[in-house]
């Protein structure tokens, strides 16, 4: 067994096709999930992991149909519980590479508690949260990431609850790898998937995804070409936080303890905010920023090292065995206070 990470075996040279299952894909035509599926299937060969060692676990919802379309091991489970199922699988089989596919409702509403705990435990697996800000499979109710006042079938005059921010939530839970990408940016998705998959611990990726039936263009602020240029902030480790059109770059800086947007040319280079993936506090500030007042951070917000749950558990097991030998039930049964009756 090789704790924390597959890859002990040499993987054959795969192509995207090797990861396509024989099942018909049943998402609505035009759904953002198609692009994500394609990106993931395309990325898989680059991970260098034998496909029999890869497992996709999901809960319930549109995104959770995902495992059926991957030609790997897969388990489509129950609503919200994928992180817990994956934790049990990981503890049983630490040599497997596990992906959890979830959505905003599955992962942050009914499964919010499991999401919290898998992140704080830092179980070695990759979580892909497809965030379309709506319940699709149940036909269009507002979700925990829907904006306040969202008008849906279940909230005809607007929702009354404020949305949760997946990135801020994950960081608040103690996540060790947090990233955001967009379903309409295939190369970036590809890059984020690889980074998350290689992270030691829980890799959490929010994928902004379009539900063209119930919440079309919810992320238009980053889809629309002009708006994207204005708002997308590509996070790059060691680079200053600059965004906006090339001829009018903006900078994100800290004024005291408050993030602020300024014209890049108006501030000296020394005052620029240089992105540092190891700085979780900075990541927490970034996680809360969004258009229109602020840019939309896209990329790796944080990537830090921390102890991995199942590694600790297995180390304890190996230590117990190396110190006192494997368990022996016959010895245990006769240990302690016993007495003989003849």
């Amino acid at each position, binding site marked *: 067994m090789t704790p924390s990470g597959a890859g002990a075996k040499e993987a054959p040279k795969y192509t995207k096709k090797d990861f396509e*299952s024989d*099942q018909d894909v049943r998402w609505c035509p035009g759904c953002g999930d198609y692009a994500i599926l394609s990106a993931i299937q395309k990325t898989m060969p680059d991970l260098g992991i*034998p*496909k*029999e*060692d890869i*497992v996709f*676990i999901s809960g*319930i919802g549109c995104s959770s149909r995902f*495992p*059926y379309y*991957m*030609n*790997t*091991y*897969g*388990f*489509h*489970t*129950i609503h919200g*519980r994928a992180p*817990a*199922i*994956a*934790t*049990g*699988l*990981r*503890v*049983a*089989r630490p*040599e*497997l590479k596990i992906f959890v596919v979830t959505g905003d409702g599955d992962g942050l509403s009914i499964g919010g*508690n*499991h999401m*919290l*705990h898998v992140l704080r435990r830092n179980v070695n697996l990759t979580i892909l949260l497809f965030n379309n800000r709506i319940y699709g499979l149940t036909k269009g109710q507002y979700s925990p990431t829907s904006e306040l006042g969202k008008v849906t079938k279940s909230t005809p005059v607007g929702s009354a609850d404020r949305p949760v921010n997946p990135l801020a939530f994950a960081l608040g839970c103690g996540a060790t790898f947090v990233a955001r990408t967009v379903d309409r940016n295939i190369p970036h998705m590809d890059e984020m998937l690889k980074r998350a998959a290689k992270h030691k611990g829980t890799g959490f990726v929010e994928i902004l995804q379009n539900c063209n039936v119930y919440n079309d263009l919810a992320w238009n602020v980053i889809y629309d070409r002009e708006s994207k240029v204005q708002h997308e902030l590509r996070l790059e480790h060691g680079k200053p936080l600059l965004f906006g059109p090339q001829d009018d770059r903006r900078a994100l800086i800290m004024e005291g303890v408050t993030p602020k947007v300024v014209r890049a040319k108006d501030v000296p280079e020394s005052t620029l905010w240089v992105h540092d993936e190891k700085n979780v506090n900075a990541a927490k500030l970034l996680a809360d920023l969004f258009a229109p007042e602020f840019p939309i951070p896209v990329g790796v917000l944080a990537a830090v090292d921390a102890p991995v749950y199942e590694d600790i*558990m297995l180390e*304890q*097991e190996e230590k*117990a*065995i190396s110190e*006192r*030998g*494997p*368990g*022996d*039930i*016959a010895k*245990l*049964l*006769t240990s*302690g*206070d*016993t*007495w*003989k*009756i*003849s």
Partner: protein
Amino acid sequence: MSQIATPATGVEKSRKALNRAVIRFAGDSGDGMQLTGEQFTTESAWAGNDLATLPNFPAEIRAPAGTLFGVSSFQLQFGSQRVYTPGDRLDCLVAMNPAALKVHLRDLKTGGLLIVNTQAFDKRNLDKAGYAANPLDEPALAERYRLHKVDMTGLTHEAIKDLPLNTKEKDRTKNFFALGLVSWIYTRPLEPTLAWIEKRFAKNKDIAEANTRVLKAGHAFGETAEIFGEHYAIEPAEMAPGLYRAMTGNRALAWGILAAAQRSKVPVVYGAYPITPASDILHELAMHKRFRVRTIQAEDEIAAVTAAIGASFGGAIGITASSGPGVALKSEGIGLAVTAELPLVVLNIQRAGPSTGMPTKTEQADLMQALYGRNSEAPVVVLAPATPGDCFYVAYEAVRLAAKYMVPVIVLSDGFLANGSEPWLIPDATKLPPIEITFRTEQEGFFPYLRDPATLARPWVRPGTPGLEHRIGGIEKQDVTGNISYDPENHDHMVRTRAEKVRRVAQEIPPTSINGPATGDLLVVGWGGTYGAITAAVEQAQTAGKSVASVHLRHLNPLPPDLGHILREYRKVLVPEINSGQLVRVLRAEYLVDAVGFNRVRGLPLASEEIYEAINQLLGSKP
């Protein structure tokens, strides 16, 4: 007080032989009654008696001192013959304070031995217990019982006055005085307790010395004080030869799991969320990492069961445990294991409900929950242990069946079995039935829902097996291929197939053992923790010449194949249960027999006395 320090100098007291005795230590939760009872149990086991115990304690961790609800007690019956239950009525009650007297006196037999710690009967404690006047001054008390007023607190302090301990520390040793005294009364060996004290307090010599001295002082007090006219001897019981140990139900479940892990050579993943009275299984398993049992203290009950299911998907044995309220939360997960056809063991340590109910009190009202408490048609195997030691075999069997049939197995233990203990004949681990688990690796002709013709089990495949990549899930699937299917006929077929798979577990059930004549006037049918009380009552009726037999069901789903036939061999059928009538409904529905229930739901084990009365009533005869 000089008599305490003086060694016994030949004070002759008569020693009477008894067949059995029921005693109860009762005091404040802080008085150490559980420890006292456990040590008395060990002494009795050393003396070669058969025994059964009933710990009873409040759910509050530190209930306010002196209150009625803060009373903690430990009861045991020990004897020179087979002992099936902790006993109904008490031969001896030790009451360490007024609240304990008030709560427990009603269970003491007229003429029974009543030992009280007089110093605790002060105004404050009397008020807390709701006594207007000191009950010890009532002449009626001494007339009705053999009352011994002993200043245990005072004598304890006297015995250790020169030790450098504070008053509180000294006070805390008084339970050893009670233990020493009662040990003398029933001629128990002190050696196991002395050895225990030495080991337990190895790092604190003064406490060890204090407890040792106080234990001996209590013993000497019995021997020398003029007030105890007689004491008792209980001969060793005739028990099967072999090596014994004391075993509680929760520990037996944990060890059964360890045995199954070792025998099957498959790691166990145990997911659990803390809940009374199941947590001790988690604590026990967490100590035995060498068996490759991986324990996850999950964030909630749902995560506990689903982590176990995830582990099973990975080729480990997934086990979870809880009590009724927690099992309710696990229902959806259990349904997933039913349709994914993965092995899963769910231990339910039943407690009094509904809702939070009475967490530390026993009940067996989750049978219907185990059988039917899930959405749709979700059959599972249901087993129930009969005694604390039997929990070992039932846990082992649950793992064996779950893996063989690729099915969830629910084990219904209860609070009484969980915490109660019995002398347990240690089994030969090599003689346990084999647990043979084979994971499919053959690619040729593989489908995830191909079925074994004998068991209908689908193949168990470990992810990581090349060429067998496949997807399963909670959505209905086509038989054999496992592809998603909404076909009406396929769904009907799958519902029947999942049920048939559980039914086929019946081929594993040995012939039902009947305690008594194979045909007769009355058959008593029980399950779970009522085994002792039912057996004692039935044997009493048999001794009285009644035509009565009993069977005790370990397999509740499926039921034993010979049960229908057995039920028809008796004119009447009585089903005692600690619920409002659950097994009795199943038997009536399944076999169209006019079975009658005997039901008490008090959070306590059934008394054999009341079952005996119910037997006589149904037979239309006087006891």
